[in-house]
């Protein structure tokens, strides 16, 4: 008999999810961080060439226009920050087209928060406190903080900030990933993604939170560059048991630099013939008006629930993953 009407997670997981949501709201209420809601349907959308989005048709006769399902609430939340909201958090759905697998569902839940006046180390302290609270029952070992360069070098012997095609090829050849050579060519960013996800990430955070900071500038995304070393970005990623759990930035506040990065990504999209994205000019306007110094992070709550419950697949923690939606 077809049982696709039933939830794919257990009822116990529904209760665990509710408990986690309560704990998070309590954590931020105690710290006077304001809970906010921003639209899932937006006029603008992220330009990141690695993120594919959903486009919807908004019909209000005679008007018809495209609205996008947000890939993250980041832009709208930064507009609130620029408007003087102070520190804020949100628990919401985010949508990424074409992402489906053991750790991916095209619709997933994010916890995203911003701390006005915090630099990255201060935000990392708070992340540590929140996760310690959520994992109180399962007893994580002590948190590890390590730079991208150090962790990459430790696991591969390669310097991620100094790309040498010959050395990277030799590494791939000697470490049973020769297919990396053809796949990555001379593209440094691709090499870093390939080697990091295959040979570094699986070792990160064995029964502990591992925070990797100081990403190479070529992977800065929406982070500002380090003021003393422009080769690295003020970006942090979280890992537990080799699973990527979240991504945070000491946020870029420079409107001109942000606009430049958007335009760069849009031209990459054109070169690769990817769907055209509409850059969020309201974010640029908000940055021009003045985004306060802040740090922010997004954490995937479904993956967090996987880790809390020891589940092997994201479908084990979702009531209705996309194939049952």
């Amino acid at each position: 008999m077809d049982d696709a009407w039933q939830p794919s997670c257990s009822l116990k997981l529904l209760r665990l999810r509710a408990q986690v949501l309560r704990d998070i709201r309590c954590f931020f209420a105690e710290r006077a961080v304001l809970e906010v809601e921003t639209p899932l349907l937006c006029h603008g959308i992220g330009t990141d060439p690695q993120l594919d989005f959903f486009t919807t048709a908004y019909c209000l006769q005679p008007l018809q226009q495209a609205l996008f399902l947000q890939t993250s609430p980041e832009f709208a939340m930064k507009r609130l920050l620029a408007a003087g909201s102070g520190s804020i958090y949100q628990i919401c759905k985010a949508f990424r087209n074409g992402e489906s697998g053991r750790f991916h569902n095209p619709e997933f839940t994010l916890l995203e928060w911003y701390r006005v006046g915090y630099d990255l180390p201060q935000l990392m302290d708070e992340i540590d406190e929140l996760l310690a609270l959520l994992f109180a029952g399962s007893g994580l070992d002590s948190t590890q903080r390590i730079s991208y360069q150090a962790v990459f070098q430790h696991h591969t012997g390669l310097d991620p900030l100094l790309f040498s095609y010959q050395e990277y090829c030799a590494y791939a050849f000697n470490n049973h990933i020769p297919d990396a050579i053809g796949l990555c060519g001379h593209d440094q960013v691709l090499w870093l993604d390939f080697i990091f996800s295959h040979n570094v990430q699986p070792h990160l955070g064995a029964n502990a939170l591992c925070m990797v900071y100081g990403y190479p500038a070529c992977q800065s995304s929406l982070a500002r560059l380090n003021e003393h070393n422009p080769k690295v970005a003020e970006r942090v990623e979280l890992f537990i048991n080799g699973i990527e759990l979240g991504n945070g930035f000491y946020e870029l506040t420079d409107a001109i630099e942000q606009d430049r990065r958007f335009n760069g990504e849009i031209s990459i999209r054109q070169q690769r013939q990817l769907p055209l994205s509409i850059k969020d000019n309201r974010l640029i306007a908000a940055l021009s008006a003045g985004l306060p110094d802040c740090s922010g992070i997004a954490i995937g709550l479904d993956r967090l629930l996987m880790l809390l419950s020891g589940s092997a697949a994201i479908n084990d923690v979702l009531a209705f993953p996309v194939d049952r939606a």
Partner: protein
Amino acid sequence: MAIFSTNEFKAGLKVMLDNDPCAIIENEFVKPGKGQAFNRVKIRNLKTGRVIERTFKSGESLEGADVVDVEMQYLYNDGEFRHFMVQDTFEQYQADQKIVGDAGLWLKDQDFCTVTLWNDAPLAVSPANFVELSIVETDPGVRGDTSGGGGKPAKLETGAVVRVPLFVQQGELIKVDTRTGEYISRVKE
């Protein structure tokens, strides 16, 4: 032949890789939040039987391989080739020892087996999971011994050697699991 994208790589799908027909075993979607999406694929080369791991950029594609499993009747061995026939169409195929491999140890004339065809030529042969074969050679056992322990080697009519309980005698028909090569039971004729 059809083209399959990484999203369609499901266990069992047959594709061409490095000019050899292969079967997908496992496909894992790997994507850093801010980076390139990959598919790490475990794949079996159907010619050599070797399992390898390959990484693709998500969205890349491979050509499908014209590989099908067909149930056939094993006819005979002419010394160089084994001959098989499809029951419905009487179509005949021949395969040499390299292709038949260990399956040859379980093939008895007239029995059914599965022949994997690649572009309509045999690529591999798999025997039925359970076969019934008679014992052509084994030491006389102790009568009355019904214990499970111990056992003795017995040579079967197809050439395979399996361990059987001591009470099983030469000339008897037995049932064997070809996946493990283990004796299951005696068969009453």
